[in-house]
């Protein structure tokens, strides 16, 4: 701890050298002050952990480990992208900048001397999971859910149908989605399947005036495509979108969206809200009872009802963009033009909601045999993300999660019979089938990959506490196993070994200082345009600007 020897340098100087914003330096200082003799920590009992994925799940896990172990832990965080923060960068909507404030806390963690970030390192392609397991006492998988649930209907494959994940990645500048063939010039109506907050984010992006997104960090190519569309609002965008349909299988009380997001869509975007049929806001007696008991559900219903009532005062075709709440409609086919294959509409079946028919007694939608067509030229599927497997680890293909108990990875996925009690909650005592699979010692999982792809940033706090708690309970045994693996060559080497591997393979790893250079460049480029940042959207450009 060279910097602290002798005189006290100013906090600002220390922060600048460490690449940590001065406001967050105290976080680092606070963690260090909890360290047991930081600089002089014995390496033999240091816990070496590798976290794969740098979103909230990964970072909150790092936070728990640092608080518990002080100077006796080192964590390497890997991300396959050069840029950190997972969905905070690529998922959170550009008009929700405050939600992104958490990156200040995460940035302070990454700048901590006990943490080493390596971006642009893809497990499986650049380093093998087996190598990480040999180099660390524990590996924590936190790489989220980068695939999608399917509708499973005819016409789903082909141009004009995208998952919401892809669309959101596209407007948030994720390099994997940069070149998606999204041409909104010929699109008048969009059907979004699903009515969670991600569906609302997509609806806002499609309907709001471009002024809403111009000062944000929405990717420039998306701003160009989405902006404009006739009527006021200026901007030279190509979008012809005038209507968005939120297509939900069940009713307003089962909708997964929340009041804050609904309110902003309905009051800040200049849209006229509508339903396609007068009975689409009706709720059952069971629904009414649930609304009475739960403020959130009441708010959702109130907001939608009021907006539709207000929207009715605006004549159709009057110039305002329209947002349709198509409750009780189940998608059954994507209709395409015979000759060109272009999407022309979404065929839906009217549903009736039956109480208690679904998992856990949830209301379930049942078809009525009556069909309609929602005309549209683009379909977005916002029906759920899905995790992807990693070679060398068990995987539950049905749920898209890594099988685990309290965050400890299991060696096999539970069978169908035990599936109901698996993975996301501690198994009841009398469930031998679920507990039968052995624990894969040293492997942990956290976040969407562990419990399924739902929840907000804060949901990962509780989750990370559980996984980190399991790791901490196992740590004495893991350290002992590491020591027994042989002094020197056999014992987990952590950062020293990982850095060696990265150098040996000449991997263009983006370390924290390099990310900060890219970060600063994006912010500077944004300043010139009055924007929060101008995102770099190609990996090659990211690496060049980061100086890697």
């Amino acid at each position, binding site marked *: *701890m060279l910097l*602290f020897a002798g005189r*006290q340098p100013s*906090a600002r100087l*220390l922060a600048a050298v460490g690449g940590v914003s*001065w*406001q*967050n*330096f*105290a*976080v680092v*200082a*606070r963690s*260090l*002050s909890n*360290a*047991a*003799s*930081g600089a002089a920590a014995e390496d033999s009992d240091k816990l070496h952990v590798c976290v794969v994925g740098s979103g909230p799940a990964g970072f909150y896990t790092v936070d728990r480990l640092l*608080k518990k172990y002080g100077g006796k832990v080192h964590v390497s965080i890997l991300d396959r992208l050069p840029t950190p923060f997972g969905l905070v960068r690529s998922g959170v909507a550009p008009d*929700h900048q*405050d*939600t992104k*404030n*958490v990156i*200040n*806390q995460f940035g*302070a963690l990454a700048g901590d001397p006990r943490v080493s970030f390596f971006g642009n390192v893809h497990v499986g392609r650049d380093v093998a999971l087996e190598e990480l397991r040999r180099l660390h006492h524990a590996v924590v998988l936190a790489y989220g859910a980068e695939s999608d649930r399917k509708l499973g209907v005819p016409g789903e494959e082909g141009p004009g149908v995208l998952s919401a994940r892809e669309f959101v990645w596209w407007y948030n500048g994720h390099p994997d989605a940069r070149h998606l063939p999204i041409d909104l010039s010929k699109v008048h109506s969009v059907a979004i399947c699903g009515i969670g907050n991600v569906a609302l984010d997509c609806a806002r992006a499609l309907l709001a005036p471009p002024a809403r997104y111009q000062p944000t960090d929405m990717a420039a190519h998306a701003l160009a495509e989405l902006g404009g569309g006739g009527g006021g609002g200026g901007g030279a965008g190509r979008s012809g979108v005038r209507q968005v349909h939120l297509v939900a299988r069940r009713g307003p009380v089962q909708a*997964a969206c*929340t*009041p*804050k997001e609904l*309110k902003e869509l309905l009051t800040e975007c200049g849209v006229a809200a509508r339903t396609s049929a007068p009975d689409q806001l009706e709720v059952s007696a069971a629904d009414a009872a649930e609304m009475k*008991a*739960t*403020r*959130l559900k009441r*708010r959702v219903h109130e907001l939608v009802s009021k907006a539709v009532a207000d929207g009715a005062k605006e004549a159709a075709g009057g110039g305002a963009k329209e947002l349709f709440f198509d409750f009780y409609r189940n998608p059954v086919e994507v209709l395409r033009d015979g000759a060109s294959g272009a999407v022309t509409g979404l065929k839906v079946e009217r549903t009736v909601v039956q109480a208690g028919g679904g998992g856990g007694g949830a209301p379930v939608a049942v078809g009525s045999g009556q069909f309609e067509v929602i005309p549209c030229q683009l379909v977005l599927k916002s029906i759920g993300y899905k995790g992807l497997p990693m070679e060398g680890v068990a995987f539950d293909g049905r749920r898209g999660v890594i099988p685990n108990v309290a965050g400890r990875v299991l060696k096999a996925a539970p069978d169908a019979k035990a599936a109901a009690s698996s993975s*996301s*909650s*501690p198994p009841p005592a009398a469930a031998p089938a679920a507990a039968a699979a052995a624990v894969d010692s040293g492997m942990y999982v956290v976040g969407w990959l562990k*419990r*399924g792809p*739902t*929840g*907000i*940033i*804060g*949901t990962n*706090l*509780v*989750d990370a*506490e*559980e996984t980190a708690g399991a790791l901490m309970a196992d740590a004495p045994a893991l350290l002992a196993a590491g020591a027994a693996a042989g002094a020197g060559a056999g014992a987990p080497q952590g950062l020293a070994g990982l850095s060696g591997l990265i150098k040996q393979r000449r991997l263009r790893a983006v370390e924290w200082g390099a990310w900060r250079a890219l970060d600063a460049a994006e912010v500077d480029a944004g300043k010139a345009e009055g924007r929060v940042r101008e995102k770099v959207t190609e990996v090659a450009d990211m690496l060049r600007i980061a100086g890697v």
Partner: protein
Amino acid sequence: MLRPILTSSASLCTSGASQHESSPPAEGTETVNITYIDKEGKEHTVAAPIGKSLLEVAHDNEIDLEGACEGSLACSTCHLIFEDEGIYKKLPEPHEDELDMLDLAFGLTDTSRLGCQVLASKELEGARVRIPSASRNFYVDGHKPKPH
């Protein structure tokens, strides 16, 4: 053992940014005593300057209360439960925006508030606030037990 580098220093404070400094109240500030019960059940009684939010006060005293969105009503991680219903009732009514975020909080109760929205006042003298911790049956995915 290393000591925190940043001590109380008004010159280092900018509005809203310094959530994590350890800073005792400046001389002459009126304070009230607030007891935080942390996730491990440990009690911390601190002097809260009148007008400071309970989130800031927690951070000023190195109490482990999350504040992911840094007080901008874009999350619910600073959720606090008031142990004394009498004190809870004396608080100014929460804004609708706070209630909308509180609805998403883990372990919501009838005396829950967001720490970033409650300012220390004379009415809070002796208040005890609990930081909810994960229980065996923790709920994720937004599901909450019915408040009772």
